[in-house]
């Protein structure tokens, strides 16, 4: 496990050190792609956003000031903003037929939910959340950021983050009720 700090790695990246680039990517790339995937709903867009984030790191590495901010939090901030920008552009051109539909693929009660189908339905439910609620859930629940960090990234208060999370989880509870019941049932059967 490389214990070099992110700040030190960024400084080395600015000097063109390939190994530091690799370590920084090993540490953060998968998380940033995961953020993009949950915000945007597909892997290709998620990788495009992650690429844009890291290209900015490469470009601005020599201007990074150690101690000014947590590098990981800044990556999340850049990635979240790029995702929200994409969602805003996408909203301007969205076709209603392209919206994820949770009803058409609902599993019947007599069959066990396939794992991949469940994943797809959770992803679709996330995509149906309003953008800022989705961002709050992704940053806080999936990325594990503190409510303070999430509030900082979304430029709202901690109380507002909590409100976004509550509303998001309420909608998810409703839209994924069938899936939740099915999952609980399958756990009981396997217990």
């Amino acid at each position, binding site marked *: 496990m490389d214990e070099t700090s992110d700040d030190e790695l960024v400084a080395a990246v600015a000097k063109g050190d390939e190994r530091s680039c690799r370590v920084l990517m090993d540490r953060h790339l998968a998380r940033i792609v995961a953020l993009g995937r949950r915000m945007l709903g597909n892997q290709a867009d998620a990788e495009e956003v992650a690429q844009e984030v890291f290209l900015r790191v490469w470009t601005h590495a020599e201007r990074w000031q150690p101690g000014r901010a947590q590098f990981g939090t800044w990556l999340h901030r850049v990635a979240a903003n790029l995702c929200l920008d994409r969602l805003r552009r996408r909203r301007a051109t969205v076709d209603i037929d392209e919206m994820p539909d949770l009803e058409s693929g609902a599993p019947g009660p007599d069959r066990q939910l396939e794992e991949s189908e469940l994943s797809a339905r959770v992803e679709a439910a996330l995509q149906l959340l309003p953008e800022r609620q989705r961002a709050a859930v992704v940053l806080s629940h999936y990325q594990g950021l503190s409510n303070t960090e999430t509030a900082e990234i979304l430029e709202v208060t901690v109380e507002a983050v*909590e409100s976004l999370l509550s509303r998001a989880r309420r909608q998810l509870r409703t839209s994924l009720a069938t899936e939740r019941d099915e999952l609980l049932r399958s756990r009981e059967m396997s217990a």
Partner: protein
Amino acid sequence: MQKEITLKRFAGIVDAYGASPRRWPDDERASAEALVAASAEARALLAEAAALDGVLARAPVEAPSAALAERLLAARPRGVAAVPSPKPQAGFIRSLIEAVWPYGSPAVPAGALAASIVLGVTLGSISDISVLTQETAVTASVESGTEDSLVALALAEPAWPEEWMQ
């Protein structure tokens, strides 16, 4: 300092953050965990939140492609350009030459010095020199002030990470 929490507040916490204590607010976590240990209602709320967490955990996740990593490595910085060494401070005589001959290159100091002497003789007045000296001092002072303010600006500049958004 831990806040005391009510069952209603606990319901609000799991409603927003789910069932995992690590996601709960730091200043309420211990009190919330104590409430779970003490209250069957709190445990019921926790189980409800855990069921939703279980479903949310099934959201798809894919590792970054090898192609993405390759593209990023290919685009990495290739080392910094050589930083030009700071321009040496002009000496007093050189400052005089520059003040006398501001638009020309004093590439040949001896020639420049000769030119300034000829010019000085032509003007025939030592007062011109003192004026020029004064102008030089003002120029140096302005340059020094500009450098100081640029350094101050760079140090105080709070928004560099915002550039990452652009």
